[in-house]
């Protein structure tokens, strides 16, 4: 899973895709996940990190994570 190189991501969760002119905003957890993806962390590593930090159980996290990744793929932000 790699982030589309052309895409600009700010720390505040603002994303700009120069190819399409579209911009997006993310909530803090989404921003955090994208940061980790950028650092080439694996899904396992990302999830473990989140489980440590947040009050959330594994199944809720898994589902939220899958849904988010799915959306990122649809939006061509990761490929």
């Amino acid at each position, binding site marked *: 899973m790699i982030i589309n190189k052309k895409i600009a991501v700010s720390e505040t969760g603002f994303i700009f895709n120069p190819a399409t002119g579209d911009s*997006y905003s*993310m909530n803090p957890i*989404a921003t955090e996940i994208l940061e980790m993806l950028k650092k080439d962390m694996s899904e396992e590593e990302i999830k473990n990190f989140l489980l440590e*930090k*947040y009050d959330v159980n594994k199944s809720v996290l898994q589902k*939220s994570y899958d849904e988010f990744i799915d959306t990122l793929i649809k*939006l061509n932000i990761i490929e």
Partner: protein
Amino acid sequence: MKKLNFERPIIKKLNVGPSHKFGLKTEFEPLTHIDEISVKDMLSEYGSPLFIISEKSIRKTYAEAKRAFETRYPKVQFAWSYKTNYLNAVCNVFHKEGSWAEVVSRFEYDKAVDNGVDGNKIIFNGPEKTEDDLNLAVENGSLIHIDHFDELYTLIEIAQKHKKKPKVAIRVNMDTGIYPMWDRFGFNYENGEAWEAVNRIMMSNKLDLVGLHTHIGTFIMTASAYAIAASKLADLAVNLRRKYNHNLNYIDIGGGFASRNTLKGSYLLGIDTSPAFDDYAEAITTSLINSQLDPENMPMLILETGRALIDDAGSLAGTVIANKKLSDGRHATIVNFGVNLLFTAFWYEHKITPAQEFSQHSETTSLFGPLCMNIDQIRESIYLPALKKGDNVVVSRIGAYNMTQWMQFITLRPNVVMIDTKQNVHVIRQNETNKDITGLESVPEHLKLK
């Protein structure tokens, strides 16, 4: 170290250009407390979903309405419209505030009597009153509002058997410029039927005509419609005095004031557009005061205001069950209350607020209930922070019609609590058990399995 609150990760496209209908965020603050009592604490103690009624809010709204009318007119009387919310505790808050009772069925009539309302302070409306009902109402000196000629003739017959003259009013329907016109109930003003009914009552000499009544519709957004209604009833009263030298005790203008909810399909929020009590009061009282009514004998003004007095006081708290993606890509959130408990979801774009802290990032979602039915939609489209399973939400302004029109469909009704003015929480209707429902059934011997 305490772990942080988890919010589902979301990403949302930013729209450049004018914001659309749902582009405005509905709520900026979570609703964690009602009357300073924690919503989450109440949910864990009394179960989810949970109806919560604020006594403080009822009394505050009632005081506002009362002030609006009493500062403009000498004699004002509210009569609590039982059908709007007939949980006894709710009715009794209104009765303690001085409200009479307005009922439309024997079930409601008996409830009012059991609540301790004097017979002569019960207004009996509605098209269906059996002879038995009418006899009881006459005996108790209740105010019987006649709906049609069949009832009028029945009542004249019944009157012969009683020592007391039945106290009656007629319900009048009329054109006030409001669509749809509620012409199913009562006698029509424009075609002369109402005047005819008045004459029949006066000629019969068997009934004591004490008032005139109308109820022009519900959620009326134009106060001026009430000015028309009041002036038409005043006209009838003036003609009655001219012909029979008979003064009426009261004019009952019914209910129908809009609450601060937002009607479906409306682009503007109800809180900004619904007329205030002052607007309705100004229209009605100006119309009565400027009429030809005898200033020495002004009739009492009765109001049967329902939803505008109770909507704000009721909330429904519940829990998120799941998140889903619909086939067309829309996001959906499933909560544990459906249209079985929230009948008014068919009319209103309800205000729904998370009961826990959230970030300022939101998404558009469809909110569905748990019923296995397609119509079970609470909000077709609502802008909410990312909610996850187990999060809580509060639906506001649901005090009217839900606790009377709720359906016992595939599940049981939950607890209803009232927070009193000293912040004590009371269960005012217990959650149902299977036995409450199936206890009424019986299975013929030959169909029994065990």
